[in-house]
């Protein structure tokens, strides 16, 4: 609802939006050029994407620097705080929908396209004329499709590293919540300890996932090319891993900001936004563990 404020707040002009637009453009332009480059001609694209990526990091640094400065100077009233909260909530909702597209693809493939290729329902003629040797199955038995794209592979065992990673992420959600309670109670040492633990748990998760990827590529022959099984496996876990990486960096930044004393018991939206994001990443992982690894 509308806040009962006497005076509205409008932020000052800023160069960061246009800087952001330019560096985002450079990043994707470099990437597109790189993807299309003949072997040996990728240098230009790589240079541009590097400049763009460094620019993106610098832009985030600069933009947040000015926002933090304004926040510490007490410019932001309760209404601005609510706007920030709404912004973060709806941003996370958009991320949910982004993952929804890939989960939707996974469900469609497992429930429709694989059975149809195996001759079920109205796929009967496709099966008979094109793929009569194929019997529908998921996982190593048929997840790379009738033409066995990428060759024979094995799947990652759910009850090994993935289970461990599940426990790690769940624990990290608990530790970040303990840190939040400590923040509201004003126990700085406890915040730093539990927030630091959360960062470490995030990093451990990423280490294990990198290990799992290497094992998949080297020993299981499970790669991005392993038919649609490999496609969905690596796209879903890969985008999730990217989000964990971002979340871990964000948590580390918040840890530094706690160290510098940026947050008070009442005003710590930066902390809360990152905590929300971390819980979101955690929930997505539970979906992945269930639908990608176990089932």
């Amino acid at each position, binding site marked *: 609802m*509308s806040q009962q404020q*006497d*005076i*509205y*707040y*409008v*932020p*000052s*002009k*800023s160069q*960061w*939006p*246009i800087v*952001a*637009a*330019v560096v*985002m*453009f450079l990043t*994707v332009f470099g*990437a*597109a050029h790189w*993807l*299309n480059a003949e072997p040996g001609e990728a240098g230009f694209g790589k240079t541009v994407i590097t400049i763009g990526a460094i620019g993106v990091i610098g832009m985030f640094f600069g933009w947040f620097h000015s926002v933090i400065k304004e926040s510490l100077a007490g*410019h932001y009233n309760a*209404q601005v705080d*609510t*706007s920030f909260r*709404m*912004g973060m909530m709806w*941003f996370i*909702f*958009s991320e949910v*929908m*982004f993952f*929804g*597209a*890939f989960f*939707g*693809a996974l469900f*469609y*493939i497992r429930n*429709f*396209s*694989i059975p149809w*290729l195996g001759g079920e*329902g109205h796929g009967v003629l*496709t099966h008979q004329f094109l793929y009569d040797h194929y019997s529908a199955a998921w996982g190593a038995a048929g997840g*790379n*499709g*009738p*033409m066995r*794209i990428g060759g024979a592979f094995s799947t990652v065992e759910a009850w090994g590293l993935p289970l461990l990673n599940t426990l790690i992420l769940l624990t990290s959600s608990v530790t970040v919540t303990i840190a939040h309670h400590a923040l509201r109670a004003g126990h700085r040492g406890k915040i730093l300890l539990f927030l630091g633990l959360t960062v470490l748990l995030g990093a451990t998760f990423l280490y294990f996932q990198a290990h799992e990827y290497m094992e998949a590529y080297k020993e299981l022959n499970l790669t*991005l*090319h392993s*038919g*649609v*099984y*490999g*496609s969905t496996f690596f*796209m879903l876990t890969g985008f999730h891993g990217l989000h964990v990486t971002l979340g871990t960096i964000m948590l580390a930044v918040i840890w530094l900001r706690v160290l510098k004393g940026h947050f008070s018991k009442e005003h710590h939206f930066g902390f809360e936004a990152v905590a929300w994001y971390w819980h979101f990443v955690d929930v997505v992982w539970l979906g992945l563990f269930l639908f990608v690894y176990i089932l």
Partner: protein
Amino acid sequence: MAHEATHDLHDDHHEPQGFFQRWVMSTNHKDIGTLYLIFSLTMFFIGGSFAMVIRAELFKPGLQLVQPYFFNEMTTMHALVMIFGAIMPAFVGLGNWMIPLMIGAPDMALPRMNNLSFWILPFAFALLLSTLFLPGGGPAGGWTMYGGYIVQPPAGPPLSLQTGSLAYAVFAIHLMGISSIMGAINIIATILNMRAPGMDLLKMPVFVWSWLITAFLLIAVMPVLAGAVTMLLTDKYFGTSFFNPHGGGDPVLYQHVFWFFGHPEVYIMILPAFGIVSEVIPTFARKPIFGYRAMVYAIACIAFLSFIVWAHHMFAVGLPLGADIFFMYATMLIAVPTGVKVFNWVATMWGGSMTFETPMLFAIAFVILFTIGGFSGLMLALVPADFQYHDTYFVVAHFHYVLVTGAAFAIMAATYYWLPKWTGHMYNEFWGKVHFWCSVVFVNVLFFPQHFLGLAGMPRRIPDYNVAFADFNMMSSIGGFLFGASQLIFLGVIVHCAFFSKKKATDRVWEGARGLEWTLSSPPPHHSFTVPPVVRDEELAHGHADD
């Protein structure tokens, strides 16, 4: 409540200084709104010029002007530019300008992000349009970018199809998506958080309501489009098999994901138009809108239904029968809330003391011609009939009636309606009416014959056709050229109003106009409201006790 503010807590309290500072580093919703609108108008003419190429080639049978591949680039780029470059930014620009004024807010809730949302767009379109100059050309698989046309296996396709444009187009769409999502987040935060005290949700103008719901649709579906095109990108460049049956994938999967975005997208392009028309008609009928609450609920209802009708774009791919039937009935259901809106617009005019200034003319044309587009949509919703109409010019006629005489006409109505408020000067009414009559006549010459072409079986997206279709195509092309030329009048009226018009606009501008935006001066001050305004019910268009 009514504190007199003697000091100003705005950080942004200086009047705009340099050109760069004012327009590039802006945090002002009016300046950013103006940028959006200018960008949209530019894209309207660029996309329109592509359409002129298409109509010129189709003027008579045979290949006269362009090669088929280039023709396909034109149809693809025309759609992408018009949808993402002209229509959507125009609505965002109108929302930027008007929503804060209408709800008594000082600005958008997140003004810097607002600026970023805009500035991404010129770069995104530079990226997209640059593909036309790539060796091998731009994307030519249609704006829907179905995997089968766009992603070719490495060795298979003819040389002309081996273009790198897909990567550029996909990244451009990612950028546009980021821009739209940020813009939508901003609009939701503004509407939910920045309303002046007393501006209850059900007192908001219908235009604000329509944008609130549209913003929700945008946040829900733009990420899905990003996911869909990302899968295209990895299928082409990283060897994934999402849409490749050999590897267990399915090209139809792309269509499902795309249209899960695509159908809400068409409502994203029409709901703000409904909002605009719901502002214009009451003003010139001098009556409050008929059934205000029903109008709001109808918009919400259409938005909900938009999520469960996507497969009506795909009847011809061979869906299971149950899916065909479900999507057919769900689609026809949309006619109910849409009908509520059309009848309420008519009832608003009924018995009103109407005058026919240019915005009203466009709004009335909208109601009639959009309804024609709605009816052809109902025809397309019928599965057995759609098997016949699918991918014919009937579909082209249908969606141009809803997007040109629907969305674009509403944007023109809004431009004439609010231009005096924005510039402080009246536009030239005579030339406005000339623009209207030229547009409304020629747009029908342009698109109405396409219904007959489609029913007779002329497929869309082809550069050449059977001589049997010659007459209607020539008629359509003539209409197209004249409709295109008519838009130069639009440009002239806008430029004249912004820079040369001597006639000052009053604060209220239109005799029957109600709402907070009309209580401000024309043009409004750089910061409209520095303290929350007192909302008086008699100033509002809606929300009286008797509504």
